[in-house]
């Protein structure tokens, strides 16, 4: 029996070591084009470039980052889809691109099956945020103001969030004036400047909330916000959908497992290390890493796409 156990342990160890060796031994056959779906200089772009920089330093891979922005990541996805799947072309977007945005644009012909999910890096701390100067300390205060006749200008930065804001108003019996702007920073700028009364912010609000300038009225996630755990979630407010999502690296479909595993493992290691530049940024700006890889990520992207259909139907009424 002992011999069998020993043999089994030895075989397991050999299998683990050989897998590790394959991942560690894989080298991209040339420079890796990194298509970033976010505007240059923002938090997401900085995150992508820092990850690339650290992979270059650590593994000797060469990255060529470029901005492919627009249409919530769809432009990047369309450009990446037909690139070689040998590990020399990858992209960074958010899971929303492969869920809601693809489901809402059937004419694009894109689905999550056109891509290989590599790794998520971080989630969002998506809150519904107002300036403290409005005098609202709870979500209910804002609803009472709306019911009292005040026009509530609600800033959103994507069509999916616009749908969520619409459904939230519907569930609460109020009609928000939903204003779409470009990016979470624009929502925060609008709120701080008094051009918006409330808006979705995906973690960028943390310092303002801490300083007492902003207040998280609600969590737009399935979970409470780390910073304001007492704020209600969308489910508490009568909305069955939420804005859960991740930053995600993807490649064209059909990428060999060896390349996929190596790139995913390398990204996961960097973002999980809070002492690395990328890991530190993720910790500070997005509340820490949240890594999903492999088959679990394939399921996550596919599920996001299917769930988006239900949200689109609900918000179409």
């Amino acid at each position, binding site marked *: 029996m002992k011999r069998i156990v020993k043999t089994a342990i030895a075989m397991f160890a050999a299998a683990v070591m050989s897998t590790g060796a394959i991942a560690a031994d894989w080298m991209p056959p040339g420079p890796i084009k990194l298509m970033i779906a976010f505007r240059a200089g923002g938090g997401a772009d900085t995150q992508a470039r820092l990850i690339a920089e650290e992979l270059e330093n650590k593994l000797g891979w060469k990255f*060529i980052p470029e901005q492919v922005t627009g249409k919530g990541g769809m432009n990047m996805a369309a450009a990446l889809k037909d690139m070689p799947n040998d590990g020399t072309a990858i992209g960074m977007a958010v899971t929303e691109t492969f869920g809601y945005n693809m489901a809402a644009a059937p004419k694009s012909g894109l689905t999550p099956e056109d891509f290989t999910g590599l790794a998520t890096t971080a989630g969002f701390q998506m809150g519904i945020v107002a300036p403290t100067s409005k005098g609202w300390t709870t979500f209910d205060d804002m609803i009472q103001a709306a019911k009292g006749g005040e026009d509530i200008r609600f800033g959103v930065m994507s069509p999916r969030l616009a749908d969520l804001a619409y459904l939230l108003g519907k569930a609460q019996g109020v009609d928000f004036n939903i204003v779409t702007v470009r990016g979470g920073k624009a929502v925060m700028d609008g709120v701080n400047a008094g051009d918006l009364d409330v808006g979705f912010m995906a973690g960028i609000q943390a310092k303002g909330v801490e300083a007492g300038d902003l207040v998280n009225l609600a969590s737009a996630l399935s979970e409470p916000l780390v910073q304001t755990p007492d704020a209600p979630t969308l489910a508490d407010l009568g909305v069955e959908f939420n804005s859960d999502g991740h930053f995600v690296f993807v490649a064209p479909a059909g990428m060999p497992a060896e390349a996929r595993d190596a790139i995913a493992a390398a990204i996961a290691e960097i973002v999980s290390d809070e002492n690395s530049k990328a890991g530190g940024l993720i910790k500070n700006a997005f509340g820490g890493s949240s890594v999903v890889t492999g088959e679990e990520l394939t399921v996550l992207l596919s599920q996001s796409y299917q769930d988006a259909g239900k949200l689109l139907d609900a918000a179409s009424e």
Partner: protein
Amino acid sequence: MSSESRSNLILGICFILFSLLLIFVWIPLDTDSGILERVRRQVTIGDALAPTLAGVFLLLGGIILVVAERNAADQPEIDTVNLGFVAMVIVMLAISVLVMRYAGPAAVALANIGRETPLEYRLLRDTAPWKYTGFFFGGTLMIAGLISMIEGRVTIKSILIAIAAVVAMIAVYDLPFDDLLLPPNGDV
């Protein structure tokens, strides 16, 4: 030069025809979402807005040439010499761009003769000297070709000037930057 010249009229008509083709045929065939798009209670700018606006400005320019400037003084003549020159510039630029695009892959194809494991240009697009091949030969041909056309002769001096200019551009745009690619390497 002559006020009898009809060059503004001809140019204006060409631009009007081109802009109409652009606005009503090319743009609708090549864009998905129209000029303005209504997406789920929100109006957003469609793919066609910016190119359609550009087409409208071309159309306005053409109309101005036809209506307001058709009898302007000092219009250049449209003759075979002028048209020939324009055609030669276009051909020269087109050949130079083709050389820029394909000189690198052609060099790799040559290097592959006799190699057991063939090289691939796309994977070498950030590796010297391969990455400079297209830009060097295409750029040199473009500059030397334009100088030679103007001078009406090909000289060693014009070729050396072209080489110096291309090398200077490589030094300014490529050497200091890790992540910038010279043409055509971003598109291969």
